[in-house]
């Protein structure tokens, strides 16, 4: 219940924060909303030596629309995204945990934490977005496909801070996030995010992302391949959704066996695509 002791700083600038993290060594961690890190620290699964609180950094919160891209400050809270009227992005935000958590947790913190059972990694991967990170050696952009390395492991380096999240606006796409949980506030047993665009009566683009089907978020490529160029019907969706678990590697846990998760992925993919396509289920 009580974390191990640590030191704390609240820098006023990004440079200062990066310096603190760099000087703090391997056990220094940035602190955004704290809703990934603090629970681990309370159970003493994590014991950083220094927390660098990012709340004083200017300009890291908020949502801007620019040339077909949403620029989301890393410290933007789930609740802000929930309330921003951003279609399936807001839907996904609303399905994270509970309102208190959404009032506090941030998109940048969640992405940097890289839990494949959480929801933002799936959004970033499905949207083919990217994050900007800043370190002592300057700024770099990490594409979604390169961000998630392993369970709770991302390519954000020690001493680097996620500053911004970029998501294409995907104009003209329909989208839906089907999140299957034990109870309303729980983590996803399996989640499926589908975004789809039709042109000239056929699917011109479709992307399906999977939550908690491996140690990282995944794309259901076989589903996407099966649907591209096809008319978007209940039948084509049902047929494509059967491929949803291909290439996945879900771990069985308290609530779900591997087989059950694979089954859920197929069912939820069909439902997500059906809803994204705006057709009757």
């Amino acid at each position, binding site marked *: *219940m*009580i974390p*191990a*002791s640590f030191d704390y700083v609240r820098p006023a600038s990004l440079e200062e924060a990066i310096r603190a993290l760099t000087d703090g060594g391997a056990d220094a961690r940035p602190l955004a909303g704290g809703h990934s890190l603090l629970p681990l620290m309370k*159970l*003493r699964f994590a014991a950083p030596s220094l927390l660098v609180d990012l709340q004083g950094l200017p300009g890291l919160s908020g949502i801007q629309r620019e040339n077909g891209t949403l620029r989301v400050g890393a410290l933007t809270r789930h609740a802000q995204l929930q309330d921003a009227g951003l279609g399936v992005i807001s839907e996904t935000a609303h399905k994270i945990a509970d309102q208190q958590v959404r009032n506090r947790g941030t998109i940048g913190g969640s992405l940097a934490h890289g839990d494949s059972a959480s929801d933002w990694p799936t959004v970033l991967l499905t949207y083919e977005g990217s994050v900007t990170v800043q370190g002592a050696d300057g700024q770099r952009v990490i594409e979604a496909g390169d961000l998630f390395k392993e369970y709770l492991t991302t390519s954000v380096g020690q001493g680097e801070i996620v500053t911004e999240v970029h998501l294409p606006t995907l104009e003209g796409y329909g989208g839906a996030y089907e999140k*299957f949980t*034990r*109870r*309303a*506030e*729980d*983590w996803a*047993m399996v989640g499926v995010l589908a975004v789809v665009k039709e042109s000239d009566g056929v699917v011109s683009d479709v992307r399906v992302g999977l939550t908690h089907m491996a140690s990282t978020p995944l794309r259901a490529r076989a589903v996407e391949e099966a649907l591209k160029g096809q008319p978007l019907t209940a039948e084509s969706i049902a047929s494509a959704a059967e491929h949803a678990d291909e290439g996945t590697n879900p771990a069985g846990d*308290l*609530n*779900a*066996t591997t087989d*059950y998760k694979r*089954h*859920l992925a197929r*069912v939820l993919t069909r439902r997500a695509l059906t809803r994204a396509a705006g057709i009757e289920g």
Partner: protein
Amino acid sequence: MSAVGSAIKRKEDPRMITGRGNYTDDMVLPGMLHAVFVRSDEAHAKITVDASEARRRPGILAVFTGEDLGDVAAPMPMAWVPPGIEVKTPERWPIARGEVNHVGDPVALVVGRSRGEVADGAGAVVVEYDPLPVVTDPEAALEDGSPLVHEALGTNRSHEWSLGGGDIDAGLAAADVVVERRIVNQRISGAPIEPRSAIADFRADELTLWSSTQVPHFVRLFMAIVLGTSEDKVRVVAPDVGGGFGAKLQFCAEEVAVSWASRKLGRPVKWTETRAEHMAACHHGRDQVAYVRMGATKDGKLTALHVKIIADFGAYFGMLTPTIPELGAFVMTGVYDIPAVKTDIIGAFTNKCMTDAIRGAGRPEATHLIEVCIDQLAAELEIDRLELRRRNFIAADSFPHEVAYGVIYDSGNYQGTLDRMLEHFDYGAFTEEQARLRERGIYRGVGFSTYTEICGLAPSRVTGPEGFGLQTGLWESAVVRVHPTGAVTVFTGTSGHGQGHDTVFAQIAADRLGVSPDVVEVVHGDTGTGPMGLGTYGSRSMAVGGESIAKAAERVAEKAKQIVAHQLEAAPEDIEVAEGTFRVRGTDKGMALAEISGIAHVRPELLPEGMEPALEEHAFYDPENFVFPFGAHACEVEVDVETGRVTVTKYLAVDDCGNPLNPMLIDGQVHGGITQGIGQALYEQIRYDDAGQLITGTLVDYALPTAAEVPSFVTDRTVTPSPVNSLGVKGIGEAGTIASSAAVVNAVIDALRPLGVSYIDMPCTPLRVWTAIQEAQR
């Protein structure tokens, strides 16, 4: 106007809604130290504890091991000695001595200046584990060659106990159909939202213990025994208690350890458990495997019920552990007239946390298996489920009714509650809609549960040493004190923790004294105030505690009438309590309680010759029988058959708890009870892996229902007064939980029958439901 029967708003609420409640952890004493337990990571092992590093840490005043507590006078007590039956009882000490027997077993107590420092200190205690073989399955534990939880006992079998009546063999032979089922009632946690907490302050050889407990008087008695002192040197106070559900019906090892530490260190010591500790080390409930045989003729007349229960007690006995399945045996015939009923119970030790009473304690398990099996039988007989029930209900005109094994049900009208329930639920329309929806792939089901239960614990002659074998009486006490100004204080031996006793007890006393409940204060949960009492559990507080208050208040009223009669020169029998006064019947002459009390306290020379001054009476009440609330519940569910998710879409409950004292409070108890039953039916399960590791150790893994998982409920009542007490009241605290799990499971089965699923165990999680469908389709 009568206060009893009114939905009076609660007197306890103003402080609680403003954040001014006073729970144990809220309190700080001068010089108070904090304590935290180091607990076993292993399910079964010999241990060596090295606390030297921890003792050197800043802020740590002491680390105590089981050996350090070697001077406690007695092991942790268990209160059941059934005549003629040997119960093998493992020795249990407040802190483990040399061997741990389940994950969470206390290994050391770290005491220091602050919460943070003792948490750090606990991390510095080194425990070496020399592993021993582990058994977690109760049936495996009973097999020859199983690892033994307690080598010294030579067996994992604690005891065998039976209760029956009628000829089971003849009954089963006479049956055309016998349903046989193995029914697992899974292990659950009580999980009150307030974790357990205790502050011990031992000074000048006297202990004051504030504890989040349902049973302060038991704690005092046992604490005196275990610490080798006497009850006059121990005061136990239960301040506001944040829910119990049986989890706080315990004399806790932790209470002893912190009290011992306070004596040793001469400082107050506080311990508040973490939720992880609660899940691992506060007693669990249920965990029974039942083998049921229920026989009936082809026209649906029940002929026999035989139940063999294997009860998993975990590693130790708490205060009442081995008695819990027996409580179910007392109502094993349910609401049905069955000529032969027998329950055989076998207790087993395993390397898990001990079980003990959790809301309902034995009766939910019994009711679940009866009500599920009635549905199973109806399906086999192809008789409608409600019709089968009706054909076997104990007739309303046969009460008091002696069932096959000798228990006497006080009153009932099972047809009446079922009829009332059906006024709220159109069974025919549901069935038609159900069929229509199935064609569209939507699977709905309805389940029923018509139940009775045994509560109002209890008549001591039945439950006591020469009867069932509890080493205590289960009577209750009350003192009603009228102050000189006419304000009233009621002391009760029960110990409420959310039930609304401050309000409803005030209502009971107020009516008898001609005052408003507003001027009646209720004091409970403090052994330093009123007389000894037995606490709050077993839905006993109204039927036993409330009756005690009624009796004491009536004695006060009798004395008041004599005073009034003397003052007004009337006969005492002509004085009535009406419209807020004690008045001479048929006149407007009378005196208010304040006036009467003023004379009794300030002008005792005006009292009748020989009458003692003041206005205060007490009563002790030991009921003649238990009380048996009953009712009819219906649950509608929808099952997403692709994912296995079950959603409760509607829940109706018609209960009969005799005369309603405060209908608002009754509804509240029923709502909470139902939700706890839904929790067990669909969400909750304490799980260990084969190595005895607890894998549901947090509220993330152990799924309590949230507001989003349950619907609003429809509740109604019939009123069949109990003849046992003058209030005509029966308990209602557990009924909702006792009734509801079967209604939910029966609804799930009803929904899934077209898919070939005919039975399912709890909890009906998505995975389990999906798996059942897959297996049925194979």
